[in-house]
């Protein structure tokens, strides 16, 4: 999922200060799962903004709404009947959702309420960790299902480096050495030969190195 964290309230207040009526939008997808921008977080933020504005001697009317998905135009269309009543929109979706809104409602200021972080997985309740950087050419098949792009600080193709000690990375004691994990996993699978094979330098063009990426499925595209 795409993970996100709410921005500091102070920053959000600066965004909405000039307005009296805003539409606060959540998203039912990734940001709901990582507890950053779902219906509940929309309620919490609306309450917080309302109280903070009152405390500052001002007031604000906040309409709360959560879309099934903010990154799909079909769902964004649902906002048409309510958008005119708002002077500005604040989105708790990831950056994709915010941009989808800004593109659809060109005359409305749209502000992000969260900082989009990374593509990650849940390690346990309340903990999310980066697992994918969308490099465009997945090599998990060769690395025992552990990604050296997302999980090695140096994104080494042939690790580990000299900074690996006791299974930990030199950048922090709580960071696993991805290449140690890869070795352990390949060994457990009896696939050590994959480890010794030299992987050539990666072509980063597939990972955004040659500009914004797009997928076009001719059979689906209209």
């Amino acid at each position, binding site marked *: 999922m795409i993970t996100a964290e709410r921005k500091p*309230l102070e920053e959000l207040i600066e965004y909405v200060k000039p307005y009296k009526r805003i539409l606060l939008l959540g998203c039912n997808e990734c940001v709901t799962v990582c507890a950053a921008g779902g219906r509940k977080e929309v309620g*919490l933020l609306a*309450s*917080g903004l309302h*109280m*903070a504005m*009152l405390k500052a001697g001002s*007031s604000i009317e906040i309409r709360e709404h959560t879309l099934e998905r903010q990154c799909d135009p079909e769902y964004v269309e649902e906002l048409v009947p309510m958008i005119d009543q708002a002077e500005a929109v604040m989105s708790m979706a990831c950056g994709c959702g915010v941009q989808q809104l800004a593109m659809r409602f060109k005359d409305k200021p749209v502000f992000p309420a969260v900082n989009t972080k990374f593509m990650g997985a849940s390690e346990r309740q309340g903990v999310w960790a980066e697992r994918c950087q969308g490099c465009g050419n997945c090599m998990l098949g060769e690395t025992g299902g552990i990604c050296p792009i997302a999980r090695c600080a140096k994104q080494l193709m042939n690790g580990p480096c000299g900074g690996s000690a006791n299974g930990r990375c030199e950048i922090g004691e709580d960071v696993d050495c991805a290449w140690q994990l890869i070795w352990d996993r390949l060994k457990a699978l009896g696939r050590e030969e994959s480890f010794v094979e030299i992987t050539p330098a990666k072509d980063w063009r597939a990972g955004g190195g040659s500009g914004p990426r797009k997928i076009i499925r001719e059979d689906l595209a209209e």
Partner: protein
Amino acid sequence: MEKFEPVIVAFCCHYCAYTAADMAGSQRLPYPANVKIIRVPCSGKVDALHLVRAFEKGADGVYVAGCLEGDCHFKNGNLRAARRIEYVKNYLEEIGIEGERLQMVHVSAGMGQRFAEVASEITEKIRELGPSPIKTAAGASGAAVC
């Protein structure tokens, strides 16, 4: 000046604090009428949204009363509630409300006396803190709290 009477919301677990409140009543133990009790199936059921909304709707203080450590009917709901309260305290500070207006307390079903004491202690503490800054600001500007 008129004495400030705080509005305090107490989310009480059905298995402990709510029964303790009942016991305080049957023992004729007085505790301040400022405390408005909301019965919940477990303190872990109390969501951050319930706590924040309580302040938004005019509470001067809020507390969650759960079972003693290790005694939760649902294993660890009280511990989850305690962690959630720490989170909400920080959020309240961000909003500009003193975090100490929100508290977690632990009582067992048999602690009627303790329940009455906690209710009095918290009421006194909130009375010392004064009205919620949200209410004060809303009153000064003539705006409605909610």
